[in-house]
């Protein structure tokens, strides 16, 4: 039994870099995943700034970023697309919950806790992709300006 699990783990470890190379549109996938992170960060910013009225707008953008993921993986094998779709749906649903909550709840901590759950759902989606393709949520977008002041 232990040997079987070890064998499966080894196959998965070897398969991950291969998947990165075999993705039909790796750049598009990378961009789409980064868009999800960007919108997720915007969600958080609007909640922290108590700009609750903007949160549903962020949810709409999250669904658009999710469509970008679908489009970037449209030529992948059906089994992989099914996995992506299931986790994408879970993530979108989690962010919808944050959006719905923001209409009634004004407690920033509660909303941020719900947002953290949504981030976990999004990370589950990222786990389907090789580590090299997963966006770093701490990295600023490219070309970020320095003009504050």
């Amino acid at each position: 039994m232990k040997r079987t699990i070890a064998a499966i783990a080894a196959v998965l470890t070897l398969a991950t870099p291969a998947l990165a190379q075999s993705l039909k549109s790796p750049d598009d996938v990378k961009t789409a995943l980064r868009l999800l992170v960007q919108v997720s960060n915007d969600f958080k910013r609007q909640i922290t700034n108590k700009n609750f009225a903007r949160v549903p707008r962020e949810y709409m953008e999250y669904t658009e970023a999710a469509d970008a993921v679908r489009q970037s993986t449209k030529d992948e094998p059906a089994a992989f697309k099914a996995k992506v779709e299931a986790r994408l749906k879970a993530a979108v649903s989690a962010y919808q919950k944050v959006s719905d909550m923001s209409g009634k709840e004004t407690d920033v901590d509660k909303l941020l806790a719900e947002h953290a759950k949504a981030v976990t759902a999004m990370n589950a989606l990222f786990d389907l992709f090789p580590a090299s393709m997963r966006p770093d949520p701490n990295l600023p977008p490219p070309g970020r300006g320095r003009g504050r002041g």
Partner: protein
Amino acid sequence: MRSSRRQWLFAFLAAPLALVGCRRKAAPPEQRAVDLFIESDGDFLAFKPDTLVCPSGAMVRLAFHHGGKFLSARHNWVLVYPGQMEAVDKDVDDNEGIIPKDDTRVIAVTPMCDKGVTVMTQFTAPAPGDYPFFCSTPGHGECMNGILHVERT
């Protein structure tokens, strides 16, 4: 007597020409025109490039292109005096980022635009210095900003 008449005639004919000459001298030197182009980095909250340069006093014609493909977020380009960006950004937070026309802290602003659209603005480059620009859509300015370096001519 004859020469005096001639002098009068010459003076009469020359006077309008002299006035024209004076007028020409008084006209301001032609303003230099500069064309600048900037765009959003696709759907990301960033300007590309995030630094622009122009000479002071130039007539700047700036085109801003919304390079997004997926997100419906709208963008614009707003140039303000140094130290005013955060205040202007905050003031339009509840107004979908629309900049009032009479805001004296603002030097130039393009209309808000949707993905794939290019908009323009025109302004006279201010005194030499570094002027911040940003997108005034609520929440965007924090990431989507840059600097216009106005150089001495």
